[in-house]
């Protein structure tokens, strides 16, 4: 299941996403976020995170930096608000 989702996301990111250029107000973009979330958290929690991120990506949101929360730490709330410098680099290159 996880691999099916990853494959679908890869296809989307390769073929469909570039058609629209960058539209996402966040970094990483919603599809990159979804891909990473599924890879890191598995299909169920990853999809849930991705859906929540998509719900956040609207013109009334400020956007900005919004990395996938790391694996073991429970991080419901800080995935939305946390953009502090401390956990920037390692998560995005992960």
């Amino acid at each position, binding site marked *: 299941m996880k691999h099916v989702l990853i494959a679908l996301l890869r296809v989307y990111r390769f073929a469909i996403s570039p058609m629209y250029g960058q539209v996402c*107000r966040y970094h990483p973009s919603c599809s990159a976020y979804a891909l990473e979330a599924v890879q890191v958290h598995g299909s169920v929690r990853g999809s849930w995170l991705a859906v929540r991120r998509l719900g956040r990506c609207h013109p009334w949101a400020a956007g*900005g930096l919004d990395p996938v929360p790391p694996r073991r730490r429970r991080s419901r709330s800080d995935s939305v608000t946390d953009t502090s410098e401390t956990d920037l680099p390692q998560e995005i290159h992960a």
Partner: protein
Amino acid sequence: MLDFFGSIGSLIMTPLYYAVSGILILWHELFILLGLDAASGWSWALAIVFLTITIRTLLIPLFVKQIKSQRNMQILQPQIRELQKKYGHDRERMTQEQMKLWKETGTNPFASCLPLILQMPVFFALYRVLQQASVNGAEGARGFLSGEQAELLQEAVLGGARIADTFLNAGQTGGDALPTRILTMVLVVVMCVTQFITQRQLMAKNMPKEALEGPFAQQQKILLYVLPFAFAVGGVFFPLGVLIYWTTTNFWTMGQQFYVIRNNPVPGTPAFAAKQERDRKKGKLVEEKTPEPEARPTVQRNQQKKLTREQRRKLAAQERAGQDRPAKKPTGERRPNPNASKKKGPKKR
């Protein structure tokens, strides 16, 4: 397992079938009232065009909001330039810092994923409504579509081409195959051309040149030329009606983008320069330029903060001494950075 996904799918799609077919039928009825034949391709084709227009109109508030959140882009330009000096070599870091700055100031040049997320299901629902009507006629009626209307849709002919048919299944459920094939291909070409123009105009005029670097941008450039072919191949699977929807929505996007490029260009792009030129001719630029000199001191201050007191003293001594500057450390450290980031731009293009 497959059944489970099937039922989830229909749970999501059923309301969409109702929405899409409802809007479609409303417009169709309106065109009948205006004297078009209920069975003609024109009433259905126009209904599809106006379905597109309805949906894009409903999305205008999103567009307006997006434009509004772009307003401060110009004021932020000096800060962005400063970030480029600092992180110009590291695109990932640069993007992160830029995103942070935008978030802090409530500015964001991007449209968000919401319009896309809203349009994709509509597109898919229209595809299913038309395809089902084409293949199954009355039994394929979805949403508000009655069996009778589905049959009308199945038989609807626009200049000999059947609206519910695709290039591939043309002629299989009756009617002449050739006109459908010709018209679908014509629409695929129009679609490709509009898409290509929109995308290229965006890249040529409204993207800062830093955004045109890096592997992702490279991929996008390649796709700009590959996509038309992909469409031409993919287009054979779509009913004529879906192609009408797609083409219309492309024209709408193109129009919106013309508007943005003319009125709200991204700073640091050719479109922005063109707008400044126009404003200068009208004598309006005076107000708009004020934020820049105001913000400039911050650039200098920040740079000097990086020097230690000792370095600054050396620097001052050097300046007093005059022109003879045999490549001492402090100046050597300060100079290359801005130069390097400036050179990067044109070289990679």
